[in-house]
């Protein structure tokens, strides 16, 4: 019984991931390439500065995959598998919640759950730690950054769960509309507290010591020892486009899951009834047939 839902959840997740990939390949890849070009240009400027100062130039690791593999196949596989995994988590949540609230219509429940997933798994963590293109992010802080990001995701998902429980509890007391608004307030207050307590990436101690007091790891202009700027800071327009398209592609994924799974779940929900009724009709039509013959 559950497997029919699970297959469909995984299927729409995969489809959503593929659609998000098509969008990413067309719209985001040019900006990812811009970011990589910025990074190589900056590395060159940095090694020129190092050479002038008499430092030994750092060596770059060999490329495991070419840019064309990364930007065509790698991102496609990555986003498809991500969609599959999100579809899996979504369908598990759907099956748990739909058993608890069997009166909610499947497509409505699918939309509500997908909205909750998009906001808590992606949008809220993004608000604190937004997606960064290549060239942004210091290698030595990857451990701290990953831990902080996962913490933000976990807090946001737990806050969403608590807000929904609070909303259900309040619904019987102040009505569904007011309970939903209050649940939203509960969620915002909880995630706001977490955002206030967690440090910005730029304020990690190793970053502060090496780069100064900046909130993010976005590269600042590169300065020669005499203070003249030899390479600009990271281009703001590239950063905006990358992040904006990141949000859009997640919206594509979650909308595909919401609408696709909703439609499939509606059909599944009426399927046994339809089969039972056709069986009854068949029984009714086949039963009298022997009578005239006999």
């Amino acid at each position, binding site marked *: *019984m*559950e*497997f029919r839902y*699970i297959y469909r*959840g*995984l299927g729409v997740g995969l489809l959503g991931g593929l659609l998000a*990939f098509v969008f*990413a390949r067309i719209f*985001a*890849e040019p900006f*990812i390439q811009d970011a990589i070009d910025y990074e190589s240009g900056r590395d060159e400027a940095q090694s020129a500065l190092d050479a002038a100062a008499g430092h030994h130039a750092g060596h770059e690791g060999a*490329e*495991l*995959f070419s840019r064309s*593999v*990364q*930007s065509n*196949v*790698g*991102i*496609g*596989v*990555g*986003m498809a*598998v*991500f969609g*599959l*995994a*999100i*579809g*899996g*988590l979504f*369908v*598990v949540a759907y*099956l*748990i919640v739909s058993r608890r609230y069997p009166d909610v219509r499947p497509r409505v429940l699918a939309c509500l759950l997908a909205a909750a997933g998009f906001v808590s798994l*992606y949008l809220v*963590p*993004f608000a604190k*730690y*937004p*997606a*960064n*293109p*290549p060239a942004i*992010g210091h*290698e030595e802080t*990857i*451990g701290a*950054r*990953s*831990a*902080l*990001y*996962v913490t933000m995701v976990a807090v946001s998902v737990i806050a969403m769960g608590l807000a929904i429980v609070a909303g259900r509890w309040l619904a019987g007391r102040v009505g569904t509309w007011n309970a939903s608004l209050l649940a939203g307030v509960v969620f915002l207050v909880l995630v706001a507290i977490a955002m206030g307590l967690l440090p910005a990436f730029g304020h990690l101690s190793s970053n502060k010591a090496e780069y100064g007091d900046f909130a993010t790891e976005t590269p600042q202009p590169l300065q020669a020892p005499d203070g003249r700027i030899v390479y600009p800071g990271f281009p703001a327009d590239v950063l905006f486009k*990358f992040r904006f*398209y*990141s949000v859009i*592609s*997640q919206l594509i994924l979650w909308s595909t899951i919401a609408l696709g799974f909703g439609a499939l779940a509606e059909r599944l929900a009426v399927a046994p009834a339809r089969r039972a009724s056709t069986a009854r009709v068949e029984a009714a039509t086949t039963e009298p047939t022997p009578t005239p013959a006999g």
Partner: protein
Amino acid sequence: MTTPVAQTDTRSITLPLTARRAALGLTALLSLLLLYFIGVDQGATSLFGSDTHIHEFVHDARHFLGFPCH
């Protein structure tokens, strides 16, 4: 004499529940495992030592999906 009857009763009730739970639990677990490989492995933590093939292959997706990356 009555004990075996009681046992079969319990089993008939709990088995479908366990199958459902196993299906849901396994789906959730495998999904989280996939998310880990797409988002985190061979960055902050690594299951296959210092190899970076997965990281480099899904590199663009990792950045674009919002995960922290080198």
